[in-house]
Structures are given as C-alpha cells and as structure tokens.
C-alpha cells in the first residue's frame, strides 16, 4: 500500500486504522507515509475506510485556516477525505504478505479465504480429526503484532524434528520447501505478515508434547501465539478427554467453536468416491 502524497492532507485517520501501526505522519513532509517494511499489505486502510474524493488543495487550505484560528474540525474517524490510499502492484515475494494478511483474498493453495484453513469446521465431512486425535492450529502474529516467516520456521522445524507431519491443505504447508525438515522457502523468510496458522494433528497421547514445544518456541520469537485444539466428540456429543488434559496443563478453555455435525457430502463426484 502506498499513500499518494499529492492527495494526502495529513488528517491522520489512516494512522489509527493500520493494524500494524505502519502508517505515520512524516512531519517534514506533512503527509502520511507507509513504512513498507512493516506494512503487511492487509488492505485494512484501503478496504475499511470510506472515501470522499475531496480536492486536496481545498482541504489543506481549510485545515490551515482552522489551524490559524486554533479550531479543529471533528471529522468522521473512518474516512480518507481525499482517497489518497493506493494499492501497488505486488510481486513475489511481497505478494505473500497480502495472501496471509488480507482475509478477502483466498489462499491459492487451499482456495479458502481468511487464514486459509478449514480445521475442524468441516470435520463432519472431511474427518480431518478422528477420535483419539487432536488437531492443532498454532497461530502466530495476532492480534496486532504480526510475524515474519523465519519466526514461524522455528515452529515448523521443531515439529518436523519430532516427526510430526503437516496438514496438507494449509497455506503454510504450501510454503515448505522441505516438509521433512520444516524448512520454509528462503525467499519469503523475511516477509512480514499479519498472521499465519501452522496446522498439525497428533494422537491425544502426544498433545502435551506439542504444547511444551510451543512453549519452547515462544521464547525464541518476538510475537504472540494463539493455540486452537480440535477434538472429536463421542456419540453423545461429549468431549472430556482433551478438555481435562488441557486443564492439567494449566489451561482453562472458555471459548470454543463447535461443529454441529450437520454437514453432508453432496458433490456428485465426492459421493461416487465415498460410495
């Protein structure tokens, strides 16, 4: 993302809405500027702010007059008055920033928008996590901190070293140049993104091992981590084994997403394969 300096009137609205704090008003230019190294191309500023298309010269003049009189206009906070935000053409490897940060862009590797994973949300028809297994979503970077791929690589390498395979339908997995060692392709390692999810599944017996592994890795990275733990319920809709194990590990889960089991395979081709 860039800000057209011919249009910008330095109102500062965009500096607040940037989730990464990558936009600032350069006092020497009196214009808002995007720190390109910190910008994750999430398009929050461009997609989220309303646009007014006002004449920049008129706005600057009015602002200067108000300033002389020590008056301040109280504008709407979610508006770019002169439509100064302009997306730029992204080329590799910068393009991965947008793929992992703008949830409106479906991931090419999975076809899924958002963070690009289905996890247990479709478990009723994919069977991704079976009884006796736990599915982990280990998310780096959110909320509002961001992460670079070389930090995520610490996790993927630790998991690979322990012989744990990665979920195939996951955007991070698609960036592994060597899944056996958990190595992420070198040309993206320094790219910063808003967040990304490493996804694995293991037998319940190995759950504690994964959590301890995350606790080790979190000491080595400069970001936040959010863990999601997916499990199958029994025929009565109950799930106690994983929940109790998490409590023993010091967690007290309060929130969950619950798959109701109402999904059915309906695609003809999938039905034929299923039969």
């Amino acid at each position, binding site marked *: 993302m860039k800000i057209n300096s011919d249009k910008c009137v330095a109102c500062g609205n965009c500096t*607040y809405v*940037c*989730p*990464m*704090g990558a936009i600032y008003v350069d006092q020497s230019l009196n214009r808002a500027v995007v720190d390109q190294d910190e910008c994750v191309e*999430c398009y*929050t500023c461009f*997609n*989220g*702010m*309303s646009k*007014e298309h006002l004449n920049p010269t008129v706005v600057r003049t009015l602002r200067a007059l108000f300033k002389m009189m020590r008056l301040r*206009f109280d504008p709407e906070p979610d508006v770019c*008055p002169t439509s100064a935000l302009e997306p730029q053409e992204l080329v590799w490897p910068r393009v991965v920033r947008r793929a992992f940060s703008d*949830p409106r862009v479906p991931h090419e590797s999975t076809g899924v*928008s*958002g*963070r690009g*994973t289905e*996890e*247990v949300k*479709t*478990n009723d*028809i994919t069977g991704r*996590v079976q009884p006796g297994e736990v599915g982990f979503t280990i*998310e780096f970077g*959110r909320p*509002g*901190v961001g992460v670079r791929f070389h930090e995520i690589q610490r996790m993927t390498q630790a998991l690979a070293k322990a012989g744990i395979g990665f979920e195939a339908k996951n955007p991070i997995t698609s960036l592994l140049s060597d899944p056996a060692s958990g190595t992420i392709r070198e040309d993206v390692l320094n790219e910063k993104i*808003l967040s990304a999810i490493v996804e694995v599944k293991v037998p319940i017996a190995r759950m504690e091992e994964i959590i301890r592994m*995350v606790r080790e890795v*979190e000491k080595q990275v400069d970001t*936040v*981590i*959010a*863990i999601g733990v*997916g*499990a199958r*319920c029994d*025929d009565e*809709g109950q*799930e106690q084994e*994983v929940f109790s194990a*998490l409590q023993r590990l010091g*967690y007290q*889960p*309060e*929130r*969950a*997403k*619950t*798959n*109701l*089991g*109402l*999904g*059915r395979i*309906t*695609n003809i081709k*999938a039905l034929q394969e299923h039969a």
Partner: protein
Amino acid sequence: MTNTLHRYGNAESFRDDYVVFAMASKGKNDDDCVPKLKRFLEMALPFHPVNLGDAIHGGSVRPSENMNPAAHWTRELKRDFRAVIDGLTEYTTAAAVFDNLSAAEEFVKAVKQADLGLCINISTSIDGAQQCCCAASQNRHSVGYSLGFQGKTEKLPNTQVLMLATMCGHGMISASFAKKMIDWVKEGRRTPEQAALYMANFCSCGVYNPSRAKRILEEAQHTQK
C-alpha cells in the same frame, strides 16, 4: 472460523456473543452452495441478528466508496442485511451473529430443520454452544478449544482494547482505532453505539458483534484507565 475462536474474554463476557456460521468444504459439499448460504443468511433474519456477513464481501456495515462530505454532520451508520444476502455470489463462509442465547438456540433449531447439508459451527463460550446444541437436540460433532494468547503478550494492548480488537480475529480492527473509539466515547464525542459501528466497517467477514462492542464501550466509559 479461527477468527472468531480467539475472541478475548471469559465465558461471562460471551453472554451476548453467538456466531453461527456455515461453510462448505471444497470438493465435498461446495457444489451449488451459494443458494444454500443465501438461505442460511435469510433464515437468520426472523431471529434478529446483530450482524450478518460473508467472508469475501464483508458484513452489514460497509464503508462507502463515495461518501458525501455532508455526512460528517448527518451520517447515520446502518446495518444493511439485505446487501449482505444479495451480495453473496460465490463460494465463501456465511455468518450470523446474535447477542442472546434464545435467538441463537432458535436459529440453530431452524438450521437443523432446513437440512442444508452445509457444515454448521457455533463460536461462543463452551457452555453457550452446548446449550444451543441441547435446544436443537443435536449432539456436537467436534470442538475446537481456544487456549488464548501466549508468547510476547506484553505486546498486547489492555483488556478492553483487546476485547474490541479481537472481535475481528483477522486483525482488521486495529488496537489503536479501538483505543481511539474508547477515548472518543469517554470524551463524549461519539456514543458507544456510533463508535461500535465505526469499528464494524473494518471487519471483513461480518462476524464482528456491534452489540457486544457497545456494551464494552459503555463499560469502558465508566472506568478510569
């Protein structure tokens, strides 16, 4: 939706937060899913959702491409549920957000009865989801627990800002903007409802809960920090 899983707060703070969403798995049940997703959203309307959305086009409060400058004095942010339903034109995830348990329960019952074949999930407190399932006589299939945030948590903002900002789990609501809205409400520059709807503009899939945000802003209005 992992983006609704890690909302910050305890179970009590989710008493007015029920996100029910429908999605299809690629290659399994995504054929002809658009009319089913539209029907899912349509079915939510009688239960008075506080937001609807699809993961590509956004929620019921959207920014304007051509805002009239007079809007600074006359603007009234409104939720447009019809625009969400009509705008859903391709494979995506659809979500309906409710601010009370009984509405969520009734909606889940209706969705079960409709037998859309889509994968249906509820994101809320563990107990809240169980109550919805119980009301619909539906056993849970799978559950995904949130273990909260760990690592460099000192980089995170204060509790109230975090509760607001994590209502878009994709991170589109910045902590700075949430903090600014709290400050504006405290200064009397905007009402909690207005501030809640400004933030809704930034949620790109419509799972943001303006009703819960309004409550958090009202609570923040009366705290010292």
